């Protein structure tokens, strides 16, 4: 299954380009447009703050691509045959989520290189590798959620529209781009503990070499939670044809 998804991924380099361009977009836009305001307000070096956030957002975009790609897969008909084959049905979805994770990894490395060109500094090479690894894993967990949504809805355009509903709140009401201190009080609890925020904070710690395991534990808990819920759910939704 992975064999198929690798060929397909390699045959669609535009998906990788898209993922990287989105990352670059956020990096450049946020840094040069909001960088001054947010950075000065919080008294921080905004680029140092932003880059780990962009990593996590890039991974989240990857999950959205999984969702839309899997919906397109389901619409194409080949998955109808997979259902009738003597194979593990988890593999159909896992091939996709793993393939997308591999693409994400490449995309993240490219975004990291660009960030370094813009003046970003990792604390250590080990920290950089750990940060990118963690981000890829977070993206992988979210891509199962994307797959479950796709298996339920099955219409690529509907899935695309729907993804806005989870993508934007998770992305913007998070500590990926802005510190929680600058948000209104009622939003702060959500912004502090939602998965993208804890992921962004944990990745930030790894990048900076700060030893604070609190966020790391939280993000691992979120990932396990997402996988426990969405792996069986997506398989069940995918299997049902009635």
């Amino acid at each position: 299954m992975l064999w198929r998804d690798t060929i397909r991924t390699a045959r669609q380099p535009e998906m990788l380009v898209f993922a990287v361009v989105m990352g670059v977009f956020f990096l450049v836009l946020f840094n040069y447009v909001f960088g001054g305001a947010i950075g000065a307000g919080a008294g921080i070096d905004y680029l140092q703050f932003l880059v780990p956030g962009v990593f996590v957002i890039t991974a989240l975009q990857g999950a959205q691509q999984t969702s839309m790609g899997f919906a397109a897969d389901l619409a194409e008909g080949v998955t109808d045959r997979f259902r009738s084959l003597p194979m593990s049905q988890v593999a159909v979805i896992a091939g996709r989520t793993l393939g997308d994770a591999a693409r994400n990894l490449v995309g993240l490395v490219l975004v990291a290189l660009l960030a370094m060109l813009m003046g970003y500094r990792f604390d250590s090479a080990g920290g950089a590798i750990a940060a990118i690894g963690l981000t890829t894993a977070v993206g992988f967990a979210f891509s199962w959620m994307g797959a479950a949504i796709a298996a339920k809805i099955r219409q690529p355009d509907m899935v695309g529209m729907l993804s806005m509903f989870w993508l934007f709140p998770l992305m913007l009401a998070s500590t990926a781009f802005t510190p929680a201190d600058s948000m209104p009080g009622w939003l702060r609890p959500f912004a502090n503990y939602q998965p993208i925020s804890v992921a962004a904070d944990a990745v930030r710690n790894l990048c900076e070499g700060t030893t604070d395991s609190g966020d790391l534990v939280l993000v691992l808990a979120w990932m396990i939670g997402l996988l426990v819920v969405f792996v069986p759910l997506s398989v069940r939704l995918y299997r049902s044809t009635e």
Partner: protein
Amino acid sequence: MSSTKAPVITADGLSKAFGDVVALRDVSFAVGSGEVLGLLGPNGAGKTTAVKLLTTLCSIDAGSATVAGCDVASEPGAVRRAIGLAGQAAAVDEKLTGRENLELFARLYKLSRRQRRPRIDELLERFDMVAFADRPASTYSGGQRRRLDIVAALVANPLALFLDEPTAGLDPRSRAELWDVVRSLAAEGTAILLTTQNLDEADRLADEVLVIDRGHTVASGPPEVLKKDVGRDVLEVHVATNADLATAEAAIVQTAEAVIDRGARRIDIPIAAGAAQSLGLLRCLEDEGVRITDFQLRRPTLDDVFLALTGARPTGDGADTP
């Protein structure tokens, strides 16, 4: 036909409803090794539903089914190892080439690396696909895609092959080629269940035909037997005016089985004795002064089968419960 061996595919009282739409009600059949069963019915008859139930894609409401001796409901894994399925919509990966598609399915059937290559080459060769094997499937014509779809179902040498309307949308030549494929697979011992809306196709390929409508079995038997009931040719006569229609009706009143379509001003007359009888009837109509605008002698269609078997046109799209 092998009546001594245990059948490869069996269905016993198979039933399925979607909400309050009865898709299949109490359908039973058996297909032996090397036999072809033709499932014949109009749109919405329940053909695809029957295929889905037997290939583990849909849960069975009532009744039971086995493939290669394994129960479809309780041993789906074993059933999937024994079957090949080419569904109504082509199920191939459009982004991969034909060869890669076969490679993919061979891998998924867990054929070893050493088995895969020769098997794929053999299939491509045998089904005349070499010329376009290395192009992405998205560039295929409808017939080429259909062929790839069916060949993909053959990768693992299935004991039972399910073909859902395999010739829909094919030109006469591709259709004839596909018929040859089906015949040769049956000759090698594959049990084949194929669905069709085409009586002629069922007649050519099937050892046994099951006619279904709105989920119910309307008739079953070898095609020769069914044709005894419906196999007569039909003389289709078109007339100029409603007055002509009335005259014609009076003239051929002795042929009780004639069917009159007033809207189309057309009379369908079953013919038992071929050309001589047709000519006689046409002359008789002409003598009565009926103005005939067109006529043709045609083979019975699915409509005629239903007419003969049930006295009614196929109801199709069984949205309402009987």
